[in-house]
């Protein structure tokens, strides 16, 4: 009954006119950036963060969340229509979605993706409502040592799911941790690595770093590649799924939702991994696996359901533990901090309207998305073919003005430029910036928790292993690293990412 009351409170919050409008704005922008080439949710959310300063906290989070899951929707549109994934989580949708479009079933493929995403979004909302309170309850009993280990797990898992070298992903985490120490040490008041620059006393502005790495850095990288797309499709043809199709996609959608909800909680690339796993599972279970890759409708339904469910369940660790599972969630935590809310298990008890309003808004947002996507498809098709050389100066302009408005500091603009170059060069030498970004956010938090844990244990570092929760989490970390380091599994992982 508690859950119903909570969802009721959420519904009341999500249904206020202001929140409805911003939810719509969020999912609309999200779909647009999912469709547009070379612009991802991290850069967009960072750019739009200043627009939310004047809004109430729940409204701001509702809009930012809408951008994130809306982007998963938009990504599938480009995957189906032009064989290019708008977001990495829709890579597998290109396999069968584009084939369906070529067979004259583009409309059906888009509808399947939208329906699959909607069902997954609805179920994932319920999953969050069921499990988030439970997890927050557990988190109330966490000791500092447990939190420290949990953050280690978050970082390790982001490495395991990162594409590329394990060594360099770990190295990027170390660099991120070190960058996270810039600023005044909360415990001793010592200014660390500030070089007498007053703007650095509060630490590196992470919005500037996110925009640099994922906004400016991407632009420089994209200019090297040919990003222009042409649509061979003149009009979107095909009808809604028939009764026969429904029979074929019903279970794949549910299985995709299940996989997505579970894998999405994992730090790193939850939604990406979920869509790969769901596609692989359907191919294995299908009675006609030979159809996969040639336009099997299950190959669209399952991964689309999985990535949408994954995008939503990625909010669970952020909302209940205050631990970001990917750079987008790191920005959401930043948005909460800007609004004066300390993320963690207390959010649910101290800010029930915000917590439940955000969760229910995801369901409302999914409803908007299905309304937005089916009739407006012609508009999105136009956006798909927007030339990149017209688009990127606009992104550049928004990044510059957005980062300046965070604290009206030219210094942040310089910082963004610096990390833009860094982001580009790092990609060039094969390092992923995402783990660095997570470590940067977690750095001083981890330090504080470990300091407290060791203070309580009088310097006995075995406290990390004697607390059962912490020990359990650290064992999982070791297993994860061992799994990736083993040659056989490593090969499998590389193949998954190479596909």
């Amino acid at each position, binding site marked *: 009954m508690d859950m119903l009351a909570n969802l009721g409170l959420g519904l009341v919050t999500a249904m206020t006119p202001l929140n409805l409008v911003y939810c719509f704005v969020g999912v609309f922008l999200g779909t647009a950036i999912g469709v547009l080439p070379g612009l991802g949710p991290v850069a967009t959310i960072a750019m739009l963060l*200043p*627009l939310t300063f*004047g809004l109430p906290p729940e409204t701001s989070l509702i809009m930012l969340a809408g951008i994130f899951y809306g982007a998963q929707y938009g990504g599938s549109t480009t995957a189906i229509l032009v064989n290019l994934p708008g977001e990495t989580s829709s890579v597998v949708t290109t396999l069968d979605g584009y084939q369906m479009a070529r067979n004259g079933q583009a409309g059906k493929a888009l509808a399947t993706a939208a329906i699959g995403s909607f069902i997954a979004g609805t179920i994932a909302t319920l999953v969050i409502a069921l499990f988030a309170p439970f997890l927050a309850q557990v988190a109330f009993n966490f000791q500092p040592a447990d939190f420290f280990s949990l953050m280690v797990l978050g970082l390790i898992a982001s490495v395991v799911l990162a594409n590329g070298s394990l*060594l*360099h992903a*770990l*190295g990027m985490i*170390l*660099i991120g*941790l*070190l960058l996270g*120490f810039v600023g005044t*040490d909360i*415990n*001793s008041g*010592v200014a*660390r*690595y500030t*070089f007498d620059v007053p703007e650095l006393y509060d630490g590196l502005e992470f919005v500037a770093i996110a925009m640099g790495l994922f906004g*400016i850095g991407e*632009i*420089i990288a994209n*200019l*090297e590649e040919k990003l222009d797309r042409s649509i061979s499709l003149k009009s979107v043809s095909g009808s809604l799924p028939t009764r026969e199709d429904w029979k074929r996609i019903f279970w794949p959608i549910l299985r995709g939702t299940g996989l997505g909800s579970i894998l999405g909680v994992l730090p790193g690339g939850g939604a990406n991994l979920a869509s790969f796993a769901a596609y692989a599972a359907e191919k294995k279970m299908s009675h006609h696996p030979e159809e996969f890759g040639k336009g099997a409708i299950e190959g669209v339904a399952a991964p689309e359901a999985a990535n949408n469910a994954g995008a939503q369940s990625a909010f669970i660790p952020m909302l209940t533990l205050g631990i970001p599972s990917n750079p987008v969630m790191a920005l959401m935590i930043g948005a909460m901090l800007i609004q004066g809310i300390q993320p963690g298990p207390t959010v649910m008890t101290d800010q029930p309207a915000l917590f439940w309003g955000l969760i229910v808004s995801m369901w409302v947002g999914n409803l908007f998305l299905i309304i937005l996507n089916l009739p407006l498809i012609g508009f999105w098709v136009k956006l798909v073919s927007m*030339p990149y*050389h*017209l688009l*990127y*100066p606009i992104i*550049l*302009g928004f990044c*510059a*003005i957005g980062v*300046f*408005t965070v604290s*009206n500091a*030219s*210094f942040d*603009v310089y910082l*963004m*430029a*610096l990390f*833009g*170059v860094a982001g*580009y060069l790092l990609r*060039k*030498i*094969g*390092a992923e910036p995402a783990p660095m970004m997570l470590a940067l956010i977690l*750095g001083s938090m981890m*330090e504080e928790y*470990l*300091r407290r844990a*060791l*203070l309580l*244990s*009088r*310097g*006995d*570092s075995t406290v990390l292993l004697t607390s059962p929760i912490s020990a359990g989490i650290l064992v999982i970390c070791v297993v994860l690293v061992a799994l990736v380091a083993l040659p056989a599994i490593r090969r499998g992982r590389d193949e998954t990412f190479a596909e």
Partner: protein
Amino acid sequence: MPSFVCNPKDFWMGLLYLVVGGAGLFYGRDYVIGSAANMGPGFFPFYISCLLLIFAVISFVRSVTTTGEAVGPIAWKAIALITGGVLAFGFLIERAGLAMTMPLLLVLGALASDRFSLEWRTALGVIAFTLACAALFTYGLGLPIPILGSWFR
């Protein structure tokens, strides 16, 4: 890059770890490390920097013992134009104001693309976007972004 390096990417990553770890130790040399029970502000920076130096050694070893693909051409022109535009924006936004700074950033940024040509449509786009930004950020949201900066007052 020395000629015996067979894996350039590992070499450059090693150099990065060396520089960041070395800088972490050097600039953090005065921070009190303390003990495990009573960590000083230098405790974490010291050990993380040391780990980075170990990673540097591993990467350098890997760069001579394994082979890997070359880094590939670096888009220096795009880097210079895009970051130059952003830096100029940061420096000029409060001095010259949005009306001057935004067009400068857009044109410098657009020059990084081969497809850019200065014609009336480009100029129109630049003006339209600048006006839209002024309307949205300065007037609409009331953010303190000057249209004309301190130089003109």
